[in-house]
Each structure stands twice: as C-alpha cells, then as structure tokens.
C-alpha cells in the first residue's frame, strides 16, 4: 500500500449547488478512506413544534426511518444492515438531521434510502408506539442522571420554563403520550421539505456524479419552508438564581452554572469564543480546571461550554464533585468567573488561546463526519464556503480588550443561574 496522498492541506474546497426546489447540495472530496458520509440536515428541530407538544420533533425523527411509501421498516433494516450502515437521526433546537457513513460502492443505494426516509415516511402506528415507549424510557433514564437534571434546571433558571431553549428536546412522558400520528405527519409535511434541506456529502467521491444523483433523488419533491421561528431574547437576570435537586443513592454531585450570552451571528462571537476558551477549555478546562481540578483536586471534570445559536445561547460551566465539596467548588467557580469578568485575560492567555484556536482548524477536518458537521454549520448560519480560510484572520483580529469586554458583559456571579443535583438536598 502506498502512502495516502492528496487532500485538505490548503483547506476545504466544497462545491455548493442549489437545486430548483431549493435544496442545497454541498460536496467535499476526501481520500482518507473509501467511505462517504451523507448528512441531510433540515432547518427544523424542536423550535417550531407547538409549545404544548414538546418532543414532537424528537419523536418524528425517531419514526422517520421506520417505513416509507417504497420501503417497509423491515426492508430499510435489511438495506442498512447489509451494508454495515447505521442511520443517526439527530434533533436539535433548530435542525433535524439524518446522517450516516457508508462504503463508496454503496453510496447510490444509501443516498436513495436517506432521501426516501426524509421524503416519503409513512409513520406506521405500531412503529410510533414502539419508539414512543423507547423515548419515555430514555426520559426516565435522564431523570436518574444528575448531570442531565442539573443542566436542565440551569436552562430553566436562565431562560424561564416556557422559553423554547428551556424545553426538553425529548419532551416529557405525558407530552409524548399526546403526540399522535396526525401531529407527526403534519410536522413532517410542514418542516421536512427540500427548501429546508442541506445535503452534505463528504468522502471519496466525484462532485458531478454526486450532484446528478442528488438531483435525481430529490426531483419532483417540492414544498415551501415556513418562516423560521423567532427566538425570543431571554430575560435579563438581575439576581442570582439557584436550584437544588436531591437525588438519593447518587455518589457525586453535578453543578451546572450558567449565563445566557449572544447569538451566533453577533459580531462579538469571536471574542466570546476566545473568552470561553480561556475560562473553561484551554488544556484540561481553562482557569476553571486549573483551580478546581489541578490546584484543589476537587473534580475529575470542570469546564465551560459556549453554545451560541440562532437565539442567544448559553455559556454553561460544569463540574462533578464530592457532595462534601459543593460549597467550595461553587466558590471556586465564582472566583474564576469574577476574576476573568473584572480583570479580563492576561496577554499570554490571549496569545495561547489565539494560537490554539487557529492551529486547531485542521483538526476540525480530520474525519468525513466532522467536515460534514462543519459544512452544515456554515450553511445554517450563512458563513460562506471560504469560512475555514477566513477563520484565522477573524480570530487574529480579536483584541484583548474585546475579550475583556465580552467577559465583563457576561461573567457576573451575582447574575448566574446555579443548579446542583446530587445526593444531598441541602448542599451548596
């Protein structure tokens, strides 16, 4: 075998074609393995589901690939299993995506199947009942998971229980019982349409053949896309909010400590991204891990995650600690939040974070799956086909003052939302 050659040394070079029905096709050639990733993502997700039916989008996704006008559930199972392919259907706030990886030789058949399940699902009643029962079991597992409970509670505190970002994407046991076939079919008709589709294909393929094949599979499928749901701004916090969730029988306490931040397309995005890297990502977990894990030995994990979205997304700090250490851990988080918020980053932190983020860009393209995810993100937010090449200069342009301003805007312990889930109901 010869060394593998050619590829992404100078960045991505995707082709973008818009079909007559509005569907976008993105193709990126790669050569690491004789495999192809197919990622069909619709601008949909849980945001547009009715407020009284949380979980509708999630359950729709679970049943989508369980029977079409052309294939029974059993035939779909056979076609996938015979090729070693597993479909992933992922419902987020603003997207519903169907993705998989297959061998190059199976591409035509699998693309046909992916489009079929998106386009012509029949939602058999028996399949709905089975997937509903699975989803309810998964919800009960979440109820028993301190990490999930703490994060969900923090979202409620940050956004208010009625905000669409505070709703459980899976819904609740009772809401799923109310989701029937009519609701699923109506949701599909309205939101899973070609005008909302971005089909990303990444792998050892040739662009023109892919575009022709995709056009063939998607031809004759029309439908307008409804206006996107407006995401209301979250309430502006004036006081610190806290919730303790007692969970008997657990060994460790999970802390979720969060703030609402900005939208993805806010021009301050890059300053916020760098600020979060310094706070809770760089190395083991930025300043947070340096204090809580490295200096105090209190936690296996302590980090922060910044997730701007169509609406104002969260910056969430997470730590898992011994129940006896909750108060000390929250104080340590307060200290690091206050410190970065009031004094900003050091010049050295700015330099190392800038170098890290720019240097990590090639790693975003290590697998076909990660390239497809990057392209989908570019399409969802309109970042452009040359975004990977522009990204270094966008990061380089951020000044220390801009990061300090971002930190000062959001990192205020007095307005944090703090949720604590663990064995002791009176901790913190």
């Amino acid at each position, binding site marked *: *075998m*010869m*060394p*593998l050659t*050619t*590829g*992404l040394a100078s960045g991505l070079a995707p082709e973008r074609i818009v079909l007559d029905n509005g569907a976008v096709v993105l193709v990126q050639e790669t*050569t*690491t*393995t*004789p*495999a192809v990733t197919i990622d069909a993502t619709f601008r949909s997700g849980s945001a547009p589901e009715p407020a009284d039916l949380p979980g509708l989008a999630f359950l729709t996704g679970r049943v989508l690939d369980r029977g079409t006008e052309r294939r029974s559930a059993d035939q*779909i199972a056979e076609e*996938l*299993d*015979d*090729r*070693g392919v*597993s479909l*992933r259907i992922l419902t987020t706030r603003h997207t519903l995506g169907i993705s998989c*990886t*297959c*061998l190059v030789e199976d591409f035509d058949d699998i693309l046909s199947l992916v489009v079929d399940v998106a386009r012509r699902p029949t939602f058999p009643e028996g399949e709905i009942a089975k997937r509903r*029962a*699975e989803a309810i*079991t998964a919800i*009960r*597992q979440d109820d*028993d998971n301190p990490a999930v409970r703490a994060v969900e509670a923090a979202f409620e505190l940050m956004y208010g229980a009625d905000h669409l970002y505070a709703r459980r994407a899976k819904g609740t046991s009772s809401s799923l019982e109310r989701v029937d076939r009519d609701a699923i079919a109506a949701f599909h008709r309205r939101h899973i349409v070609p005008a909302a589709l971005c089909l990303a294909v990444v792998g050892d393929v040739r662009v023109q053949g892919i575009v022709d094949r995709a056009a063939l599979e998607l031809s004759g499928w029309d439908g307008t896309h409804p206006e996107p749901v407006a995401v209301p701004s979250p309430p502006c916090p004036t006081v610190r909010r806290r919730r303790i969730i007692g*969970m*008997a*029988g*657990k*060994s*460790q306490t*999970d802390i979720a400590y969060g703030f609402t931040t900005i939208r993805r397309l806010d021009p301050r995005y890059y300053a916020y991204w760098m600020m979060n890297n310094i706070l809770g990502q*760089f190395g*083991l977990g930025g300043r947070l891990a*340096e204090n809580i894990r*490295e*200096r105090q*030995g*209190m936690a*296996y*994990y302590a980090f922060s995650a910044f997730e701007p979205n169509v609406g104002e997304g969260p910056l969430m700090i997470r730590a*898992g600690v*011994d129940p006896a250490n909750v108060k000390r851990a929250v104080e340590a988080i307060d200290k690091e939040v206050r410190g970065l918020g009031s004094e900003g980053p050091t010049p050295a932190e700015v330099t*190392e974070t800038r170098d*890290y*983020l*720019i*240097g*990590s860009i*090639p*790693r975003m*393209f*290590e*697998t*076909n*799956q990660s390239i497809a995810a990057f392209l989908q993100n570019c399409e969802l937010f309109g970042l452009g086909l040359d975004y990977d090449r522009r990204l270094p200069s966008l990061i380089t342009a951020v000044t220390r003052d801009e990061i300090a301003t971002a930190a000062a805007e959001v990192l205020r312990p007095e307005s944090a939302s703090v949720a604590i889930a663990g064995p002791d109901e009176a901790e913190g």
Partner: protein
Amino acid sequence: MALPDTIPARAGIRTAQFGNGLTVLVREVHTAPLVSVWCWYRVGSRDEGPGRTGVSHWVEHMNFKGTVNIPRDEMKGIVERFGGMWNGYTWIDQTTYLETAGRQAVDQMLFIEAERMHNSLYDPVECESERTVIISELQGGENDPEQLLDIEVTATALRVHSYRHPTIGWIDDLRSMTRDDLYGHYRRHYIPNNATLIVVGDVDADEVLGKAEKHFGAIPAGHDVQRLRLSEPPQLGERRVNVEREGTTAYLKLAYHAPAVADPDYFPMLLLDAVLTGAKGLNIWSSFRGAPPQRKARLYTALVERGLASVVGGALLPTAQPFLYTISMTAMNGVDLDALETAAIDVIDKVRAEGVTEQEVSRARRQLLARLVFENDSVTNIAHQLGYFETIAGSGFLDSVPERVAAVTAEHISDAARRRLAPSSRTVGRFIPRAAR
C-alpha cells in the same frame, strides 16, 4: 542508535527498533496537515495485585503532572499552542498517551512522550491532589447504574483473573496507596523496551525516525517486565448478582467467558456478536460511540422490536487474555426483568441449538468489513489501531483482521456459540431500581 527495519516491513508502515528496545511504527498519511503520536505501554489494570488496584490509571494521571524538563503548568500548553489535542487512557491490558496536532508540532509531541517515559516527577503534593480527583472520577461513574452493574458482573464472572477489578481501582486501595507505590509502578513499566511509539500523518517517515531517535534513543532500557499471569478456572454453574439502588430504570446484563483476540474462537465469536447485536468493529477508541447496524440482529428484533428493551448491545472487546463477552439491555419502562431475561436467553438457546444461517454470516461479514473501513477514517484512529493491536496481539495481527473475518464460516460460529454460550458459563446481572424515598 536506530536500527531501521529490523522487523519485517509491513505494507505502508516503516518499523524500527531502537537499541534500548523501543519499537517505532510510522505511517505516512498526507490527506490533511495533521500528525497523531501515540505512546503505548504494556501495562494495564491486569498487572495490579491486591491492595494496588487502580495504580496503573493513577500513574497515567500523574504522567500529566510535570516532568524534569516540563513544569506541570506548562505540560498542557505545549501541544495546544499548535492547535493540538492530547489525552490518554488506561485499560486492562495497556496504557496509552496521544497527541494529534499540526505537522509542525511533531518534535514537541515526541519530546513530551520521551519526557513522560523517563522524567515524570511524582511530586508528593501532586500525588495527594490527584487522589481526590480520581476518587471523584470513580464517584461520577457510580452515578451511572449501568457502570455499577458492569463492575459487579465483571467481579462476579471472574474470580481469579486480574481483569476482574475495575481499571479505576477499588475505593479502599485508592485511599491507601502511597506516592512510592505510584512511583515504583512507573519506574518498573515505563521503559522503552515495554513501549511502542506510533506516528501517523503528514510526515516523512525517515525524518520522524530520526527525531524519535533523538528524543528516545538515550533513554536506558529497563529490566524486562514480568506481567502478572493468572488463569481463570472453568466456571461450573450460572452465577447471579443483583444491584439494588435508587433509580428509574432496570438493566440486565449477561456475561460469558470470551476468547482472547488471538484465540481461534475470537473471530467466530465476533461474527456471532454481529448476528446477535450488530457489528461494532474493533476500535475501542471510536467505534463504540454510536449505535451499530443492528435492526436485523437477533437480539434487537427479539427484544427492542417486541417492546421488551429500549436498547441492546453486545461487547466482545479485543483483549490479550480471555475476558468476557457481555450483552447489555435496558428494560423498557414497565417491563419486568424476568420477562426480559427469559426472552434474551431464548435467543441464546436458539442460536446454540440451531446455529446461524448463511445469510446472517454473509451480512455479519459485510458489516464487519465495512466497520473496519469506517474506524480508520482519521490519522488519530489509524494510529490508535496500529498501537492497540501491536500492544495486545503483536506485530502484523491488525493486517490479518480482514482475512480472519472473511474466513469465518457458519459452522465456526455455530460451534463457538454452542461451546461459549453455555448456561454454566453465564453470569446474570440485574440492576433493580428502588423508588427514591
């Protein structure tokens, strides 16, 4: 002094063994400007005796806490400045460390690994601080009922072999071990003649071998390590363990004694697992993170499609010595564990009695061969697989995997099922949720 190609050349891979015994494998992959470096040690939790469980994993943690030439607070920034990621893991047969970063960071990655091999500090204060970090890691795992059950089932199914204790260790050992225990373990096992260095990515193989020689060549060889070798006696009857704790969901686990990766039964059992629960592949670093193709798998159709379980999965992990084949199930809300267990055992009994069909074998084979492609989709994954199999199975084994999969017949699988899935070889574990008071 480098002695290139003292080991027979393998397709696309440059292999060398240095005078101090360090084996180095380099594969050029020029599809992205990235390089992945892994350093593997033939030491894992199976090498731990009573009172010292968890020492290998704790040592792994300490090897991120500073070296003679890299202060602790600089250790984690070296690769990050090049945009790189780093990590490490300890498991039953091995301990490994990795960095993946841009090609310009190769020298730094090799420098870190050489420092880690010979110059880690084991500052007593850092050892104490890490004790509570690891106990926190253990407690986090205890929050997960499936992990709790897995630990109990493993310790019940294995009575003698040192695979029986969890890699993280038992809590009392973590409380009582000393800095000297850690440092002694480090000095015994972290020697070049007990390690394999893997470099995969956008590199020139000759240049990398030269750099590796510069960083590792002067590290002295150590005394050859005698690994702990314990044999598990035959199991004579079914064993059962129940874990009762507050929770919302019931779980069931079946464990059977499994063959080591080099055993002639391993690949028939791997295909049998594909027939029962869908093919996962052989990359424990990446392949087990998503659901396998399993909708036609026997246990999926019998349990999930019939509404008895929400999830079913099988695990036959490649190990150096005989470990366990486990089948894990999440009971559907409201389903009784007796009903779930009866249905699962019916499937096992049927495959033991009737074997598998040619169609199932053909599907399992195709699934596995496809997964072998999917799990080599990046320099990080390619490097992991090279190092993993070099460490647990020896040179050349990985290259032979597709042929071994292709050679398995329905008769091999049926025979393995009959012998390996006998009731007397089974351990049944149940997690029984108690309502919170």
